[in-house]
C-alpha cells in the first residue's frame, strides 16, 4: 500500500509573552492509502495544530509533512491552494460554507477555482456528490436554511467536489447533536470504503471507534497509535 501522508519529526512552537510554547513535539507517523485515521486528545493537546499542518494551513517549526511525496513546508501558497483543491478536501467544525451561495453553488465553487473538471461536466459532478451525500433535495437552499448536520454534509460534499483522494476533517461533529454526528461518521466510513483516505480530529471517544486507526495526542506528543476492530490492516 502507498502512503499518501508521511509526517516526519514534526515540531511546532508558538512564541508567546510567557516564552516558547511547544504545540507539537517530534511527531512522526504515516497514513496509508484508504485509511480512516481518527486523532483524539484533550483540548489544547495539539491535535488541531497537527491537522492544520496536514492541510497545509500552517507551517511546521521543524520536521516535515509530505503529501503524495511533496513536502508541504516547501510549497508556496499557490501550490498549497492547488493541493487543497485537488488532493486534499478539508472539512471544518463550523462548516465554513459561503453563506451567500446555495449548497449547489458551494460545491461548484472548488471546481470553478481548480478548473480541472470541464465546465459542462461540473453540474453533473455536483449532483453526483450531492446524491452520494444524500442532500440533493437541498441543492438550492442557502446554508442558513439547513440544520447543522445538513450543513456539515454540504461541507463534506464540497470537500469531495474535485474528487480529492484525501479528506481532512477538524472536529466535523463538534457542533452537531449525537444523531447527526453519527450520520456524519457513517458518511466518512462510507467514503473510506470508497478508497478515500480520511484523517479526522475528534473529541468523540465513542464515534472515533468507527475509524480504522486512532492516534492519541497529549501535550503535543503522539502517545499512542492503535488500529481499531474496523481496521482492514489489524493492529499497527
Amino acid at each position, binding site marked *: 500500500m502507498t502512503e499518501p501522508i508521511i509526517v516526519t519529526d514534526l515540531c511546532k512552537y508558538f512564541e508567546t509573552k510567557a516564552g516558547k510554547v511547544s504545540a507539537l513535539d517530534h511527531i512522526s507517523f504515516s497514513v496509508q492509502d484508504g485509511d480512516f485515521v481518527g486523532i483524539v486528545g484533550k483540548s489544547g493537546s495539539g491535535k488541531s495544530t497537527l491537522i492544520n499542518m496536514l492541510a497545509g494551513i500552517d507551517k511546521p517549526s521543524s520536521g516535515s509533512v509530505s503529501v503524495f511525496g511533496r513536502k508541504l513546508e516547501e510549497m508556496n501558497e499557490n501550490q498549497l491552494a492547488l493541493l487543497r483543491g485537488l488532493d486534499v478536501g*478539508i472539512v471544518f467544525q463550523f462548516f465554513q460554507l459561503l453563506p451567500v451561495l446555495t449548497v449547489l*453553488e458551494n460545491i461548484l465553487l472548488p471546481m470553478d*477555482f481548480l478548473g480541472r473538471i470541464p465546465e459542462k461536466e461540473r453540474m453533473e459532478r455536483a449532483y453526483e456528490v450531492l446524491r452520494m451525500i444524500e442532500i440533493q433535495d437541498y441543492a438550492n437552499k442557502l446554508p442558513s436554511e439547513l440544520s447543522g448536520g445538513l450543513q456539515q454534509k454540504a461541507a463534506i460534499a464540497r470537500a469531495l467536489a474535485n474528487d480529492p483522494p484525501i479528506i481532512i476533517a477538524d472536529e466535523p461533529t463538534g457542533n452537531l447533536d449525537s444523531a447527526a454526528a453519527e450520520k456524519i461518521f457513517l458518511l466518512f466510513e462510507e467514503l473510506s470504503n470508497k478508497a478515500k483516505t480520511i484523517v479526522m480530529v475528534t473529541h468523540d471517544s465513542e464515534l472515533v471507534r468507527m475509524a480504522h486507526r486512532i492516534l492519541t495526542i497529549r501535550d503535543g506528543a503522539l502517545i499512542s497509535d492503535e488500529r481499531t476492530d474496523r481496521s482492514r490492516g489489524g493492529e499497527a
Partner: protein
Amino acid sequence: MRPRWKKIFYDFRSNPSRSLLVILSIFVGLFAVGMIMTLWICIPSDLRLGYEQSNPANIYFRLSSFDNSLIRSVQKWENVKDAMGSSVATLRAYDGSGKLKKVTVQAVSDDAWPVNHIDVLQGSWPLKDNEAAVENYKLGDLDGAMGKTLTVKTASGKEVSLTIAASIRDQSLGAGDYSIVFIEPIQVYVNENMLRRLEMDTQWNMLRIVLKNGGFDENAIREYANDYADRLKKAGYQVQSIAIRRSDAHPTADYADAIAGILLVIGVLVVFLSGSLTYNTLTAILSNQMRQIGAMKTVGATYAQIVFMYMRLILIYSLIALIFAVPSSIGAAELCRGFLGKNINFANIRTGIIWEVILVQLVLGLVVPQIAGAIPVSKGARVSIQKAMGGMRNTGSSGNDRFTRSMSKIFSRPTALSMRNTFRSKSRLVLTLFTLSLGGSIFIASFNVNTAIDEHVAVIARYVQADLDLVTERPYRLEQIQTALQDISEIDYIEGWGFGSATYIDADGNDGPSISVFAPPDGSALISPNVKEGRWFEPGEQHVICLSERFNYTYPDLKVGDKLTMEVKGTGNKTEWTIIGFFTMAGKSGGFLAYMPRSSWERISGAGNRLTKFQIVTHTRPDEAQRAAITKNVEDILDERGIKTTSIQRNDTFVADAARGLNIMSIFMMIMAVLVALVGCIGLTGTMSLNVMERTAEIGILRAIGASNRNVMKNVLTEGVLIGFMSWVIGAVLSVPVGKVLTDSLGSAVFGSRLLLGFTPVGYGLWLVLSLVLSVIASHAPARTAVALTIREVLAVE
C-alpha cells in the same frame, strides 16, 4: 454564471447598506471631481471664448463729439479690424420703488453692434423708438421686468418713459474704464433716435476699436492706442480717456481665476479624501469577508483568484458609482455655471458633454478604487487560512499602551473601553482622522476665508464712510451745497472732495489709462485707507499721490518714491506727482484710482475751491427707509435750487455692489465646504461599521456580563464621538494652512496681493457641533447593529 462571480454578485446584494457605503464613497469623489473639473475647464473657457466671440474692443477712446465719417476713416487705419461709435451718458432712472438710480445709457447707429456684440436674452431686438434694453446683470436692481416702464431723468430733469423691450447680456461691462461689472451702473440701451429725447450727444462720444492683429498682446495694443490717439489729436479730436483691453481679458476674469484656483485646491483634496474613504470602506468589506476568503482558500482558491474576485466586486461598485456620478456632476456643474454666469456676467459657451471630464472620471472611478482596494484586497487574499477562519480577531493592537492606560484612570471603565477601542486599529484611525480632519479643515477654512472676504469688504467700506455720496454736474463751492441742504435736519455735516478724471502719461510721454482721482480734505474722518505699501498723505502735504492696486498690476515697475505724470481732463496741463503709497480697495479689476490731498486738487483742477463730490454724513446711522427718504429729500432740494447732480449714491449700496463678486466666492466656498463635510461623514460611518464588526465578540461578552442595550450603544457612540472630537482638533489646526492656501489663491487672483488670513470662531464652533453630530449619526447605525446582536450569535462564530 460561475459560482465565484455569483458569490461576488450575492455579496454585493446581500449587504446593501455596506455596498451603498462603498458606492457612495466612490460616488462622492467622482461627483466632486466631475463637478469641480467641469467648472475648472468651463469657467475660464466660457469667459475667454464668450468674450472673444463678442468681438471685443481692444481700444476705447472717450472723445469729444464725432460722427460716422471718423468711424469710416478709422476703419481704414492700419491694423483696424472694426470700429464702432456710440453715444454714452450717465443719467438717472427710477427703479420700481420710485428711487432714482444711476444708469449708463448707450446708443449706436448699427443695431448689430459690430464691436462688443451683445446677447439678447429676452425680448425683441432691434429696439424701436421709446424702447429700452436693460443689461441683465443689473435688471434686478431696477426692479425691472420685460414690458415695464422705465422712466429716465435727463440732464435737465425731464422725465422720459421707455418700455423695457429686451434684456441683454453685455460681457464687456467695465471693459471701457478698467472697471468690473459689480460696480458698474445699471446699463440701458436705446436706439439712435432716442438720443435727442434723452438730451444726450446726438453725435458719438465713445470710439471702440478692434485690432486685426496683436489683440492678445497688451504692449502691442498700447502702441496702437498711442498711435491712434496721436492721429485723433492731430485731426482735432479731444481724447478724454483711453482704455485698452486684450481680446481674451474678460472684465471679471480675475474672479474666474480665483474660483478656478479654489476649485483646483479643493479638487486635489477631494481626490485624496475620496481615495482614503474608499480604502477605509473596502478594508471594512474585506475584513467582513475574511472567513469566506479562508473557506475559499481551503477549497483551492489561489491568491490571484481571490484578488481578481474582489477587484471585480470593486469594479461593480465603481461602475454603479460612475453611472450616478457622471450625470449628477454634469447637472451640478451646469447649475453652478448658470449661477456663476449670471453673477459674474459671462455666457455659458461650452455646451455638450465635456469628454475630458468624463475620461478623468472614468479613469479615477476605475483606477482609484482599484488602487485603494489593492492594499486591503491583497492583504485579505494573503492572510493565512487560520487567521481568516478566526475572523481576523487579532487585528490591531490591544490599545493597552501608556496613553490608554492613563485614560482608564481618568474615565469610567466603559468610557475607557471605548477609548481603548478607538486606538486599537491605529492605521484605520489615522485614515479616518485624515478624511474627517481634512474635511473639517476645509470646512473651517471656508469660514475663515469668508471672514477674510468680509474683512476686505469692511476695508472697502472704510473708503466710503459717509452715508451719501453726491456728485454734481459742475463744480460748486462747499458752502453752496451746505446752504442748500441746511434745512435737512438729519444731515450732520457735509465734506467736499475733489473728484475728477485724469489721463496717466507713461514714461514715453504717451497717454495711458484714465485715472479716477479722489481728493479728500486734510484730516478727513470719512476715509481710512488700507495702505499695502508706503504711506498715506499727511495734512499739508503737496504733490503726493497714493495709487490703487491696479497700478501695481498694470505697471509693476512703478514703486513708492517714483514720479507719476498725469493730465487732469479738460485742463491740458500735465502735472507730476510723487507716489507715496499703494492701497488695496476692490481688487485689481477695480480700476485706476488715485487719492491726493484736496488742496493739491484745487490747484490743478482749474476750478479752484469749487468741487463736484460731496460726502454727506447724517446724525445717526439711518435705516433703509430713512436713507431713502434723505436721498429723495436731497435730490428734491438740489433740483429746486437748480443744482444738477450726476449721481446721489448711498455708500452702503456702493459697498454692497463692490462686494458682490467677493460674496460669490463666499457662496462658492460654502458649497465646497458642505461637499467636503459629506465626504467626512461617509468616512466615519464606514470606520464605525468596521469597528463594530470587528468587535462582535467583545460586544457579545459585554452583553453576557450584563451590559444593557444602552451600555452597548453608549460604548459605540462614545468611540464615534471621540473620533469626531479628535478630527475636530486636528481639523482646527490644519485649517490654518488650508485657509492660507485658499486665501492666497483668492488674494492673488482678485487683488494681486495676499489677503490677510481671516479668523472666525463660527467655523470652528459649527464644525465641532457638526463633527460631533455627524459622529453620532455615523455611529448610530453600527451601534444599532451591535445592540441587535444576540449573545448566541456573537459567541457562536467564535
